[in-house]
């Protein structure tokens, strides 16, 4: 256990531990700091810049910085809602409004901070495979990496940056696990399940075959995900249970249990 420290957020003292960031402390204490690219469980990324705070005292250089990457240290004092921060936040949200013009998340957050329109303009991209909703928070890329798959990544740079599969070809590596879609804060990533396969619509319609339950015939998991997990687990699973969907597994379990108790 690392040492406990005391920091000040908006002139109020809070106890924290050294591995924490200002953002996690603030979140725990119910202090409002907006974020787009932060997710508990994956390393902070510092890209959306919305979680900026102003360091006014302590071991860091005073000024504006992101709270998601700011490790707490004894004597640190920050402010989360100054006039300066409000000004920059407004501009950033205005930029996001034109960048991901169809994202409800962006609209709602902007609305919350009083931003309803943007003085900037950008052409709507009808071919955008993420439906003009992607804010490049990189959560999908990072979660896919964290799984050890890395099927998607950034393509291009600057304002041309996009997230998709390498060479915009259907992915050979995608497991079809859907973690990217699940974590995507704007709901930009889409997939569709049809008979026998899952289609990762956003990822160049990568098709992932489903595995059928050997008892009821229902699609219950994608084939590559099943293999990936089996390999990772490295434990012997009952051959009889292995190829069953969760429903059939449960039924088989209970039937066995009933038989054993009735004997």
């Amino acid at each position, binding site marked *: 256990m690392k040492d406990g420290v005391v920091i000040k957020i908006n002139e109020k003292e809070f106890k924290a531990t050294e591995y924490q960031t200002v953002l996690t402390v603030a979140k725990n204490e119910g202090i409002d700091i907006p974020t787009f690219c932060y997710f508990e469980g994956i390393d*902070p990324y*510092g*890209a*959306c*810049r919305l979680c*900026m705070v102003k360091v006014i005292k302590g071991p*860091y250089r005073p*000024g*504006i910085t*992101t709270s998601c*990457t700011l*490790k707490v240290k004894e004597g640190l004092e920050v402010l989360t809602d100054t006039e*300066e921060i409000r*000004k*920059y936040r407004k*501009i*950033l949200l205005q*930029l*996001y409004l*034109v*960048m991901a013009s169809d994202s409800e998340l962006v609209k709602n957050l902007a609305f919350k901070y009083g931003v309803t329109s943007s*003085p*900037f*303009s*950008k052409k709507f991209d009808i071919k955008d495979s993420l439906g003009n909703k992607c*804010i*490049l928070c*990189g959560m999908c890329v990072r979660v896919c990496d964290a799984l050890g798959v890395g099927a998607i*990544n*950034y393509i*291009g*740079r*600057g*304002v*041309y*940056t996009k997230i998709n599969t390498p060479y915009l070809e259907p992915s050979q590596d995608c497991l079809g696990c859907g973690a990217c879609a699940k974590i995507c804060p704007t709901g930009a990533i889409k997939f569709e399940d049809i008979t026998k396969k899952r289609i990762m619509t956003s990822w160049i319609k990568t098709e992932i075959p489903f595995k059928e339950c050997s008892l009821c015939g229902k699609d219950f998991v994608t084939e590559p995900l099943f293999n990936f997990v089996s390999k990772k687990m490295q434990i012997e699973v009952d051959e009889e249970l292995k190829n069953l969907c969760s429903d059939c597994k449960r039924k088989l379990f209970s039937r066995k249990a009933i038989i054993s108790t009735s004997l």
Partner: protein
Amino acid sequence: MKIQNLDDLDKVRNRGLNKIFTGKPKISVGLATCGIASGADKTYDALKNYIKDNELDVYLTKTGCIGFCRQEPIMNISLPDRPILIFAKVSEQDVNSILEKVLNERISDEKLLCKIEQWDHITSKTTYGCEFENLPSYSDIPFFKHQKKVVMRNCGLINPEDIEEYIAIGGYYPLYRAIKNMTPEEIIETVKKSWLRGRGGAGFPTGVKWEIAAKMRSQTKYIICNADEGDPGAYMNRNEMESDPHMLIEGMLIGAYAIGAQEGVIYVRTEYPMAIQRLDIAIKQAKEYGMLGDSIFGTDFNFKITVAKGAGAFVCGEETALISSVEGQAGRPRPRPPFPAEKGLWGMPTVINNVETWCNIPAIITHGGEWFAQIGREKNTGTKVFSLVGKIKNVGLIEVPLGTSLSKIVYEIGEGGIDGKKIKALQIGGPSGGCVPKKLFNTAVDYEKIRETGSIMGSGGIVVMDEDSCMIDTAKFFINFTSEESCGKCAPCREGLSRLYELIEKITDGKATEKDILLIEELGETIQKTSLCGLGQTAPNPVLTTFKYFRDELDAHIKEKRCPAKICKGLITYKVLTDKCKGCTLCVQFCPTGAITGTKGQPYEINSEICIRCGSCIDVCKFDAISVA
């Protein structure tokens, strides 16, 4: 042979001296990228053929670039015990006549620039010979007169592909002293005393950075040389590597010994093939002579250097992006802290310094920290190399003590504008820098003073602008550059710069209003304050300084819809002057859009709707019959 002791080093030095003082006429041609671009390789070949055809006993060799780019190709000739004679603009056709005269000691060629009798290589002083009283000396030439060469101490004077010549002028002696006679702490103390600051632009004290890394408890440490020079118009580092690669290697070796690193990386952009080639040669030679590898100079200090080639992304000059790139990932910056000195390459303590910073180290070790600290001014010590380019007479690489005024650089070293044109401003610090107007040319080049103008020192690019340059257009150019080079990770830089570019385009198209100016200023400030790395944090500087210092030009664009320099295409029209036009049809043939119509022999007309303001008609018209308004 592997050098183990001072005797070995002296032996190599003597061999090297025989290549510098050959006992016969010696000719060297400046064959760095800049020289070759001006045809120096052809001059070299012509010399080779001339010597062969006439069976002359002449020592022909290559050298780097002395910095006077306007005068390339540059050729040095030294007769035994005579000064080095520097000839300028030597084309292949000039070779015969110059050699015929010089080899017979008839020196009165208009191609002669100056002579060098003595030279302070910093690591040693060398007398080449005193003679030819009537010829101008190096210090008589305005371009050279106000310079002080510490980093470029050997550039254009020794063969960069020969380690023996480097040792001959005292090279690798500082390393020997550092390793054999100094403790790492003493070296760091010397560097701290010298007050050397990072030459990449930010100006962090080098000694302090080394000290942080030296104190880190880690078995493995790295040092990196940042040679990812990418500012438009800047090429100081390229020349330093091409003209004197060993000074960089020696500087890195001393740094590695001081902080306890075993491995170094030189990160060079692939667009610098000759620098890479010469570094490869230099590293190979340093290995052969025992300066790189295991048990250097017979001690237990081991060090190796690898060259990592960057793919030319500007953002990879940012240290954390550079580290990502070396690790094989995309060049995207990481948040700091942790700083590389604590957690850098492969998570290990890493010292990253710019090429020029490393190159200063052997000089500092030779004469001590106090010596270095008395060059320049307090807290801004030593010299800085600048590439002086743009609309200035003397284009080239210059090295001046910190504290030298911009006006001295522009008017004395650079000798002012081309063809008497008035200089309006200069842009310092590349895309991260800003425009400094003429009225502030008394500003000294000093990290703090330059910052006060709203610009930054940067890595050393100075682009000069004259009355024909439009400052708004210049700002647009730089924003376009940084927008294209943004890595795309953080929102303010990626989205903000792109929007900023569009807003500035609105000005140059004559469609902007006062409201847009306020928006640009607010957006610019947001990008500066909220971006993740130095690229975004400094990218709005060119725009914001232009708005600050060139309000009149801005107002002309916005209120009067006029571009004073007649550059912005949305604000100018081309017209045929009917009294001058002879109706020769030449412009019609060259107009790419068919905007010019009329009857042969009669004055023609330009249709503004179709005209794209490319200027082809002006270029071809023999009667000055086309005007821009």
